[in-house]
């Protein structure tokens, strides 16, 4: 099966510029996650979608970050404007949830963002 697809893989921008990341989850996975991974740290959840609904966005810095998952499939994460501290790897993951069971999260390759 095709895995989680993310693009771009690398992005270098100047501070104050906007940037967007795209994620296509595994077919049939109703839950999608965006994580941020700073250098030397584990991934931290930014937002979780179940279908098209954001069920947990408590960790998303809403002043500059936004996300959408139209039609409950692909998702886009945007930063506007970017700051130096946003340099990190942005990971997308997907899984199935059925009833009270969450199945394994499958991760994409990530987008490495460098803000200069």
């Amino acid at each position, binding site marked *: 099966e095709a895995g989680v697809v993310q693009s771009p893989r690398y992005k270098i921008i100047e501070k104050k510029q906007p940037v967007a990341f795209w994620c296509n989850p595994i077919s049939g996975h109703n839950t999608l996650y965006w994580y941020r991974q700073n250098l030397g*740290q*584990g*991934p931290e*959840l930014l937002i979780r979608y179940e279908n098209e609904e954001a069920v947990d966005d408590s960790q998303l810095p809403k002043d500059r970050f936004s996300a959408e998952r139209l039609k409950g499939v692909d998702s886009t994460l945007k930063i506007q404007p970017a700051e130096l501290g946003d340099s990190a790897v942005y*990971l997308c993951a997907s899984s199935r949830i059925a009833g009270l069971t969450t199945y394994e*999260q499958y991760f994409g390759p990530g987008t490495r963002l460098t803000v200069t």
Partner: protein
Amino acid sequence: AQRVTQPEKLLSVFKGAPVELKCNYSYSGSPELFWYVQYSRQRLQLLLRHISRESIKGFTADLNKGETSFHLKKPFAQEEDSAMYYCALSGAAGGTSYGKLTFGQGTILTVHP
């Protein structure tokens, strides 16, 4: 709040030696615990979860609720086990944090020939 602590950033062993990667957690309730692994130039992937009680690639992990630990063990390390290992926690089914993974900082395991 849920928290995962991996006290060792780096761990080096020789091939054939036993290895133990430590993980301690903080959570009020009954969590689900996981180990994820990232091999060089590969994606982050699930290694094992405590509810499965499986041995994957020779690795096992036992949830110790008294010590709030979920250490990963392998009796005889192999060179191909060299990777970054993350311990992660999710809230119990039915709770607000169910399905939300909290990761530790990771341990880089190097197995020398």
